[in-house]
């Protein structure tokens, strides 16, 4: 490495000013360098943008019935055609993204905020606490996920909040188990003893060191939970238990489209493609994130460092 910087003291000054906690920045750079992850990230960003800007982007009202224009194939007037009520498929797709992404986001947040602490506490403290927490999680795990959702929706009525809650509850024990497993492994590492020898408090060890080392499996699980939630919402809506008509939802629209599969294939192709794109993007981003969060998996550091130097 060539040094354009002068003395060592200056170098220290320079690095100090840069904030040495550049770990996250390096990780972000790794993520972007991963082609699949970068593509996924762009797609996901586009989908999010579409969902956010749906009112601006949508050419028509997604629930506006226009029977004179029903089952129009894709064309100039209706970019992706219309459905059996003459509603614009593109507009419904854009608005449907809102439902899917929101459900995914809330389910992940819910599962994370409850499952991760449970897993960390159980794994780090061990003993009776571990046993009690994990048996409770086991009890939850015995319910078939979709059936539990159906049951909750059956009890509380078919609406999207109940679906989200049901899907979130189902994912809590999965995350708790994964976090606990990693915590158990990390807890026994020498560097955790070393951290204790440095005078770090248990809370600090858990939040700064154990959690950080369990991030990879958590991130992978987040992407799985997210895709599962998006698909589950679509499934439940397909069954008529989630989003209620006329609200647009990818699953809901798929359910309606199946009757016209032969006559109007664009009706099911559009939401299917959207669903696939969303789930695939999330999975790619998840894979990339997992690698980016583990510095040991950064293989091309040297080349990148070289590139930086040229850039400077």
């Amino acid at each position, binding site marked *: 490495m060539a040094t354009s910087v002068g003395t060592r003291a200056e170098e220290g000054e320079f690095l*100090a000013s840069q904030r040495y906690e550049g770990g996250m920045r390096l990780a972000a750079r790794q993520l972007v360098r991963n082609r699949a992850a970068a593509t996924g990230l762009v797609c996901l960003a586009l989908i999010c943008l579409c969902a956010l800007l749906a009112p601006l982007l949508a050419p028509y009202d997604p629930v506006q019935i226009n029977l004179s224009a029903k089952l129009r194939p894709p064309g100039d007037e209706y970019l992706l055609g219309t459905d059996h009520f003459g509603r614009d498929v593109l507009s419904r797709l854009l608005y449907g993204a809102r439902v899917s992404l929101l459900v995914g986001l809330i389910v992940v947040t819910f599962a994370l905020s409850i499952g991760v602490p449970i897993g960390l506490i159980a794994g780090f403290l061990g003993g009776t606490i571990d046993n009690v927490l994990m048996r409770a999680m086991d009890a939850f795990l015995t319910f078939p996920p979709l059936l539990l959702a159906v049951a909750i929706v059956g009890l509380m009525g078919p609406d999207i909040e109940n679906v989200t809650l049901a899907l979130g509850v189902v994912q809590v024990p999965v995350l708790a188990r994964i976090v606990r497993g990693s915590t158990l492994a990390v807890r026994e590492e020498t560097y955790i003893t070393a951290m204790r020898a440095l005078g770090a408090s248990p809370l600090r060890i858990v939040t700064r060191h154990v959690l950080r080392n369990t991030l990879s499996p958590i991130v992978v699980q987040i992407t799985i939970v997210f895709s599962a939630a998006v698909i589950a919402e679509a499934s439940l809506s397909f069954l008529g238990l989630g989003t209620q008509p006329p609200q647009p939802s990818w699953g809901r629209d798929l359910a309606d489209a199946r009757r016209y599969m032969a006559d109007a294939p664009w009706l099911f192709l559009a939401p299917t493609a959207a669903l696939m794109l969303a789930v695939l993007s999330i999975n790619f981003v998840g894979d990339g994130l997992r690698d980016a969060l583990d510095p040991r998996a950064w293989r091309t550091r040297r080349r990148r460092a070289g590139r930086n130097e040229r850039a400077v």
Partner: protein
Amino acid sequence: MSLLEVVNLRTHFATDRGTVRAVDGVSFTLDDGEVLGLVGESGSGKSVTALSIMRLVREPPGRISADRLVFDGIDLLQAQPQELRALRTARIAIVFQDPMRSLNPVLTIGRQLTETLRRHQGLDAKPAARRAVKLLEMVGIPSAAKRLTAYPHQFSGGMRQRVMIAIALSCNPRILIADEATTALDVTIQAQIVDLVKRLTREMGTAVIWISHDLGLVAGFCDVVNVMYAGRIVEAGPVRDVFQRPSHGYTLGLMSCTPRVDLVGQPLTPIEGLPPNLMEPIRLCPFLPRCRVSVGACASVLPPARAISPGHFASCHADLRAHWRG
């Protein structure tokens, strides 16, 4: 008054099959700037002794008791968790055996160095980073400033151990415990690390507890040596005395299985057998089944500590004067 006073330290572990007496009545003192060697084979209780002093043994399953365990006027057995945390690394620091696993793999070297400085010395990010660079330079890591953003896996074992030493010495502790700090390294690096620790602790006046099973290292570095076997100190004394006049069958055994430059070509004598099961109560000398110099009394009475010369003690019935050098 001694810096560290350990009297009758016992660390037991409750297991499903019984109580393991990992450390069973260890006593020693350590003065300011003194270098104490703790030698013995695997499982003799060296590391548990060190962890007990730092109060790093998990309790339960571990249970630490002692008649006295006092560091600089602080009763380590009565100290609250916060007090102990404030003590660790700031005043008693430890370097572990395996440098490959002692650093958090997902945090940069800089983060791990500065975290300690910020915690114990209340430094802000920038001064901490500057001090971290100084510390890395002190332990001989080239282009230290650039290394702050490196991750542990980009460092070799020797470099990682240097980093661990830098972290351990970052707050100028009174005691540095090196728990087999060079065992995982190859011989040339070993020598460098020993020299480094020797030089730095001498400069800073730090007392050292050097735990090792390498008698040669201990002989060259320590002022005083304690030989441990089955959780007890079986022989203790000034390094020169112990090595020239070994007075316990185990010390003698250790010395005859250590290669010596002046005796090249002579076969080494291994210590036959296995260390005793630490779950069983000890009634006789624990080394008896493996001892080559045992005498009649060994089969009936547990040998008490016996003064060989001022400051040199051994718990052995046998008279080993025939094996003394010089």
